[in-house]
Structures are given as C-alpha cells and as structure tokens.
C-alpha cells in the first residue's frame, strides 16, 4: 500500500477519531456547563426574590386566610422569561405565583434542585426555604426549553469541527505530499538512471530516514562493480592466455594439412598436446573462478582431513615424479588433523605446490615433504633442489600467468591458485630460497580445527 496513502489514511483516521472524541467531550462539557449556568440562574433568581423579601421590598400576606395574590395585584416580579416563580408559606400555602408557573404542591418539593413531571412536561425545579421570612421560594423552568438552548449552543460549538475536519484532511494530504517530495525526487533520479549502471546514487539531499538505505545500496553497487571488474580482468587475462595455446594448435593442424609423413605425424601429436595443455589451463582458470565466489556457494563440506589430502596428492604425482626421475620423500607421519578447508581446494593447493617443485627439480634429485604440528597450525614444507626463485621475482610469482623463465612449460597459474586458496582459507603461503644451496622451500601454514584421538 502506498506510503502516501498509509500516511494520509492513518493521520485522517486519527484526526477524525480525535476530533470526534473532542467534539463529543466538548458537547457533554458544554451541556453540563449550560445546565449549571441555567441551574445557577434558577438559584440566583430564587435568591434574588429572597433578597427582595428580606429587604422588605415585597410585602407578602402571610395570614392563612388571605387569598393568593394575583400577579397583577402584587408588585410584578420581573423575572427572566420562561422562568416560573412561586412563593409558598412554610406550611405549604401558595402565596403568589407567576402566570406561567406550573401547578406544584410545595410539600412534595425538597430544597435544592429536582426534576418534576407536571402535566406531562418535564420541569427543572429549585426550592429555597427562608425560615426568617417564613416563605419557600420555588423557581422552575421547562426542560424542553432548556434542551433546545443546550442543543443550539452545542451545535454552534460542534459545527466548526465538522467543517474543519475535511479541510484538515485536505491539508494533511497536501502536507504529506510535500513532505514526501524528497522521496519522489529520489525515485525519479533512480528511474532516470541508465539500466546497466552501477554508479552510486547521490546521497545529497536524501532524507535521513532513507539515507541508510541509499548508503547500503551504494555499498552493494560498489561491491558489485568490484566483482564485475575482477571478473572482467580475469576473463580478459584468460582470453589472452588462451590465444597462445590456440595458436599453437591451429598452426600444428595447418602443418598437418599441408604436409605428410613424419612431419604430419608430429604435427598431429603436437596439436593434441596443445589441446591437453589448454584444457589444463581452462581447469585451472575455472578453479580460480570458484575461489572468487562468495563463501557458501560451494557444494562440498567446508573441512577435510589434511593427511588424507596430502596422501592423495603424493599418490597422484608419483608417476610424474618418476618420469622426471625425481624422488619424493615424505619425512614423517602426518598427524590426523581436520582443517577448515574443502577437500578439493586443499588438494589443488598442495598439488600445485608439489607439482611446481617436481617440474623445477633436475633429474636424480629429491624433494622432501615434512609436516609439523604447532598448537595452532599444521606446517607443511616442501623442499626441493631446483633453481629456486630469483629474489626479484618472489613478490610477483603468485601473479596470474607470471612465469619466471621462458622454459616454464606450465600455465603460469599454479602459484596463483595456491595463493588464492591460502588467502581464502586463512592459510599462510611460504616461499623462500634455501640458504646455502640451490632450491626452494615452499609451504603452507594451515590452522587446524581438531585432531583425531591419539591411539
């Protein structure tokens, strides 16, 4: 439901309820006030008569036998219209009464205010007893006149509410519209953006309530841009790197087409080798791409047994080592530890490290693989007798597609993969040249999680 209509509807409803409650309260209050005023009028009229009597301005025949004085004969008591007044003796004998006075029997009426039904009409009656003067003064007023008066006044008071309420709602509508203008502006600026753009939304002039939202969006845009840029760079690098093996395969196939015999045979074999190399490159690039994905997207468990993976890697690479006449020498039994790295990632990292050493070690030499367990880390070290890495190249060697020497037949991605896995899973990658002799010490410090119980 639109924010604007929620606001307007809510405010209108609240206001209406409030105003209605106020009007009702007002009404009852006014009515009560009016009643009190009218009652006070009744009472003060009676007091006024009492005052007149006690001052002697009004002579009253107090003998029992005297006739009731007609209003014309006696001093006309000027009273406000609609008020009826009667004078009675204490014994209950009517002394005088105004023309419009109702027929009441004084003895029934107690002092003070009361409501009486006389000839079917409700009257408000006030009685005052003056023992000194020996009279009872009774003033009365028709209720329906009262009601009419009260009704008129109440109406007069409430009517403005009824007029003002729709006006208020209209003003609320206008105010809400104006108040939501910054939001409208924001909406228009977003709508007018280029569909594909990831530029940040301007935060200038954005209301404070929406600012966190806009900031969060901008943060998201920035992360997305970065991710796209990384991917663009990666696919760019990859495409270029792929062109070289593709060229090799194409030229070899063209040779195979225009030659025959031994040349042709060799060209076809070379083309196949090129395809193998290229598919290895593609696998490595896919692995690197996987490493860039957000955690939680991998479909395998997040931990594995380090010892098992190392054994698997040794198993896989023994044929290669044998072919190159390089000896693989594991130095010690690996304690069974669980590490928080997915099996395939650890396998890839270990494999690339060991493969790197195997490829660079001259025939007849050996590679030692050792592990050491500290309270926090599993330290794996691979020591070879190859040429090592020139100091100036050490910093760059984990860059993608970087090759130290021309003779490197690899893809250039091996160490980048190890570095990426290490970074992603909180491992430390070690690369240093041996002191005193040629060779490289490469290794990983892997934080371990738990170990199998010792036998």
């Amino acid at each position, binding site marked *: 439901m639109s924010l604007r209509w929620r606001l307007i509807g809510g405010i209108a409803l609240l206001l209406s309820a409030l105003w209605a409650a106020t009007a009702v309260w007002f009404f009852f209050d006014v009515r009560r006030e009016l009643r009190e005023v009218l009652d006070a009028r009744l009472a003060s009229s009676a007091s006024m008569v009492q005052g007149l009597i006690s001052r002697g301005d009004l002579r009253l025949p107090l003998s029992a036998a005297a006739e009731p004085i007609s209003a014309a004969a006696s001093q006309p008591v000027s009273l406000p219209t609609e008020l009826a007044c009667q004078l009675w003796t204490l014994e209950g004998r009517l002394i005088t009464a105004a023309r419009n006075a109702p027929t009441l029997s004084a003895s029934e009426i107690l002092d003070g205010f009361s409501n009486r039904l006389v000839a079917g009409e409700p009257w408000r009656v006030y009685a005052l007893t003056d023992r000194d003067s020996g009279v009872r003064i009774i003033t009365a007023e028709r209720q329906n006149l009262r009601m009419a008066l009260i009704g008129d006044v109440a109406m007069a008071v409430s009517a403005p509410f009824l007029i003002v309420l729709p006006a208020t709602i209209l003003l609320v509508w206008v105010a809400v519209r104006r108040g939501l203008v910054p939001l409208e502006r924001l909406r228009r600026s977003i709508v007018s953006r280029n569909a594909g753009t990831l530029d940040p939304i301007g935060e200038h002039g954005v209301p404070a309530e929406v600012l966190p939202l806009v900031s969060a969006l901008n943060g998201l845009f920035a992360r997305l841009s970065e991710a796209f840029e990384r991917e663009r760079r990666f696919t760019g690098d990859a*495409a*270029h790197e792929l062109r*070289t*093996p593709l*060229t*090799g395969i194409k*030229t*070899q196939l063209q*040779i195979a087409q225009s030659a025959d015999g031994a040349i042709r045979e060799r060209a076809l074999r070379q083309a196949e080798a090129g395809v193998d190399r290229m598919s290895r490159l593609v696998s490595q690039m896919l692995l690197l791409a996987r490493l860039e994905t957000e955690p939680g997207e991998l479909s395998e468990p997040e931990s594995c047994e380090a010892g098992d993976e190392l054994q698997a890697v040794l198993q896989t690479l023994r044929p290669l080592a044998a072919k190159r006449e390089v000896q693989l020498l594991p130095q010690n039994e690996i304690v069974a530890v669980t590490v928080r790295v997915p099996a395939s990632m650890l396998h890839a990292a270990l494999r690339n490290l060991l493969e790197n050493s195997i490829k660079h070690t001259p025939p007849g030499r050996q590679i030692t693989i050792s592990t050491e367990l500290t309270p926090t880390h599993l330290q794996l070290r691979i020591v070879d007798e190859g040429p090592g890495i020139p100091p100036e190249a050490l910093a760059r060697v984990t860059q993608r597609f970087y090759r130290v020497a*021309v003779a490197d037949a690899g893809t250039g991605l091996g160490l980048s993969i190890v570095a990426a896995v290490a970074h992603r899973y909180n491992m430390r990658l070690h690369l240093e040249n041996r002191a005193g002799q040629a060779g490289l010490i490469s290794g990983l410090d892997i934080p371990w999680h738990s170990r199998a119980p010792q036998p």
Partner: protein
Amino acid sequence: MRILLIEDDALVGEGIQVGLRLQGMAVDWLADGLQAVTALNDASHDAVILDLALPRRSGLELLRQFRAEGHTTPVLILTAFDAVQDRVAGLDAGADDYLAKPFDLQELGARLRALHRRRQNRADNTLRHGKLTFEPATLLATIDGADVNLPRREAVLLQLLLENQGLVVSTEQIHNRLYGWNEPIESNALAVHVHNLRRKLGRELIETVRGVGYRIPRETA
C-alpha cells in the same frame, strides 16, 4: 626468405618454424628476448617475426631498441592483444605489420612475402627472367607456361638468385639463406643444386663467378 622468429611458446614456435619451412622459408627460432638482441644485430635475415608477449623483456621495448639502433629489417609482430590501441602502439613502435593470434599460417607467409617484396621494391611476387617465371608463394617455376618440378632447396636457391638478378650472390649468402642455424650444411650440395637447376632451366641461366658465388644475369632487352 630467411626469417628470425622470436617466440616463447614451444608449440607456436615449432609450428611457425615447420610451417614456414614448408613454404620455402628458413626460420631461425629464438625463445628468449634477451638472446634476440644479439641475433637481431646480425643483419642476415629478410624479416623478423616478433611475439610481443615475451617474458623478461617486453616485445615492444625490444622493437623500439632495434629501430633506435637503425636496423631496417621488416618486423611482423604477433600478439594476443588485438585492441586498436595495441595495434597502433605496435606499428608506431616500428613494426611493419601486425598479426593477431591465432593466425593462419598461409596468411603469415603471405604477409612475410609482402614485406620482402616491398623491401626489394618489386611490384608483385612473381619473379621473371625471360621465359622463366617463379612464384615464391608456391615455389613453382614455369618455363613458357610449362611447370618445372623443383625440390624445395633448389626452388629457394632459384628464388634467391632471381631476386638478385644482375648481382653476384656469394656462397656464404646462399648458405645463410638456404640453411637455418640448426640445419647441417653439406658443402657439395650447393654445386649439385646449381647443376640440377642448369639441367632443368638451361645452362645459360646461372653464371658461376669463380671464388665468389653465382649470378643470374639481368635480362637483355
């Protein structure tokens, strides 16, 4: 033609070397930019193929240095980056032509022949002498329209002599052109090749210049 190839990838390098050899060119292949500097200074090549993505020495830098030293040998650059600005950068650094990877071997050969033709100020590929025509692209010789079958080395020798009509081509130059660095030179083979050419194309075609080399005389009007 004798080509110097500077290419670090084994598969591509071998492919170019074998492929161009099939088209009658001798190819000297270097995998390292540093080694290339020395080789380039020796001006015995008709053209250079340079792969820009070399480890340890940028191909463009190499090219600039080569040109700065005054060498005019035509250079064709190979690269995986074929955006316009890379092409412009390569050509402005001194390259004579540009080919993106992956490329067609035939196209590579044709462009090299074009560079060579331009260098020798010839209008087209075809070499002529009297009734003899020779097509370097196909290594085909014809006399009066009739095809003459020539094995590769003889064809290349004929091409060299025809390209230098009226000039003496020394034995050393012939050796340089016919044989790359890694090919063994049979000392008597040259005489045999000349003999065969004379047999197939006419005795008067090739003159022997004693102690120096051979020559195809310029055509008389």
